[in-house]
């Protein structure tokens, strides 16, 4: 994909690239390098210097049952959030794609939540479901349901999953709608003439044709749930009660920023980086190289 015609000059392109490259160097490569370095060292007994310890920090990490719990919890959290958000979005998109009155209004009213910050979705959910202040939360307790996500771990998980999925639906909706609109009308018409109706047409024609979009969204949603939901979880539960909603990113923050355990949190950062690299590799492997073309 190279151009035939280009401008001459050696200095100008370097000057144009410099701001981006410098920022990338200072705020991506340097911290990443630092994380790798600190993950391989530990502070000596007197707090004076650093001792190289090889993979000890990683060994400690993976023999720590709390860390393994956090991995399992994060995987569960990511998959649940993604499946809930994607299913809801797909259902809404299928109906919003029909030729009905007011479809433009419906679309706007389903797209605006894209603008909601992850931390703001936590605030909104608090006002609905908090056992003391929330409208529904109080209602549940008045009607004999012992609802308190600040004390009950499963309820806390339900709460952070719902708030995180809720915020992501509109993003997925936008992509499914675009995907549906790019399906040729002729294909749908042909299926209609063959007598394929409603659910069967969706299952055998529409859904398979949407599978590239669905796969793309699955990757994006998993990354969103793993990283961007920090604000949602931290504002709602801080990872609690206990560690019941402590995902990997919350744990890095708690261990590194609050408990100042640099060695362990750096090792955790490195594990997360490897995780992101893996996800990105999978995405490019299966999505083709569209972004690169």
């Amino acid at each position, binding site marked *: 994909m190279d151009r035939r015609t280009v401008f001459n000059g*050696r200095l*100008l392109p370097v000057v*144009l690239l410099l701001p981006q*490259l410098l920022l990338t160097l200072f705020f991506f490569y340097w911290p990443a*390098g630092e994380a790798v370095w600190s993950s391989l060292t530990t502070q000596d007994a007197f707090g004076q210097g650093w001792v190289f310890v090889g993979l000890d920090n990683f060994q400690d990490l993976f023999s720590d049952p709390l860390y393994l719990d956090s991995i399992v919890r994060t995987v569960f959290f990511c998959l649940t959030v993604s499946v809930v958000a994607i299913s809801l979005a797909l259902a809404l998109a299928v109906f919003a794609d029909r030729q009905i009155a007011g479809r433009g209004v419906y679309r706007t009213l389903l797209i605006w939540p894209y603008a909601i910050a992850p931390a703001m979705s936590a605030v909104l959910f608090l006002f609905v479901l908090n056992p003391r202040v929330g409208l529904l939360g*109080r209602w549940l307790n008045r009607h004999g349901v012992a609802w308190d996500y600040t004390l009950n771990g499963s309820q806390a998980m339900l709460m952070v999953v719902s708030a995180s999925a809720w915020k992501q639906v509109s993003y997925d909706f*936008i992509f499914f709608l675009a995907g549906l609109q790019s399906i040729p009308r002729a294909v749908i018409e042909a299926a209609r003439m063959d007598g394929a109706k409603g659910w069967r047409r969706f299952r055998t024609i529409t859904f398979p044709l949407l599978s590239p979009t669905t796969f793309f969204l699955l990757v994006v949603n998993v990354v969103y749930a793993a990283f961007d939901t920090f604000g949602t979880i931290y*504002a709602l539960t801080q990872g609690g009660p206990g560690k019941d909603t402590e995902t990997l990113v919350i744990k890095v923050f708690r261990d590194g920023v609050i408990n100042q355990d640099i060695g362990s949190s750096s090792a955790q950062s490195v594990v997360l980086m490897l995780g992101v690299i893996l996800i990105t590799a999978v995405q490019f492997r299966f999505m083709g190289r569209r972004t*690169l073309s």
Partner: protein
Amino acid sequence: MRRSFNRPDYIAHTILVLGVLLFAFPVWLVFAGSTQDSDAIMRGDLSLMPHLANLSVYPRVLLHGTMGTEPVWHMLLTSFGMAVAIATGKIFISVLSAYAVVFFRFPFRQTAFWLIFVTLMLPVEVRIIPTYAVMAGFGLINTFTGLWVPLIASATATLLFRQVFTAIPDELVEAARIDGAGPLRFLRDIVLPVSGANIAALFVILFVYGWNQYLWPLLVSTDPALDTIVIGIVKMIGQETQTDWSAVMATAVLALLPPVAVVVLMQRWFVAGLTEGEK
């Protein structure tokens, strides 16, 4: 299709209305609550009908904040400044770097591109601790610069502009060269205007991204004078006892308005930009 014009598609309307309500309900609840008495909210007497006579809570939180926070106008201004700076900064440096990669041939061109591209894989969340150390080294902790500069390096925006620029026909470049236009004039007079729609779309996406930041400001600033509105509102809900709930709810409404307005007003560009760009 013919059938659906003959009689309303009740199933579709029902599902879509339910979907719309699922998103509108919490916001309506918070708006209604903001106009009611805080003690009533604490007692659980929250009504879904707003008391429109009590809108005075809005000027109150805007000018004075609540429970010792910064005034809300100040937090909104900080968020606005941060969002605009991130959006503009990212677009600016990404246009320049993409332009260099697409329209010039120079040593290490591919290397430079890959150096930028690889950072696609490193969100802030995975490098919390080391980034803090680097920020401290630059003296950027508790500064406004620290809130936005580190967030403007972007692989996604560079990739997007690279795609857009590659699609510009060679004939345009030839014509410009015959007319004696240099690379900077070509950028200003041809490349930027033809990329206008992409820039507008990206601005919306990045404005929302900037406005919604939470972890980053939490990390680099402990100074209440630098609190963004998102940081401010989470601080407010953190003090669960003796909270001035109607003021908190009013703040929540004010925090939602600007990014929602931007998305709704620029919906067309933004949707096209999102689905074409990020895929």
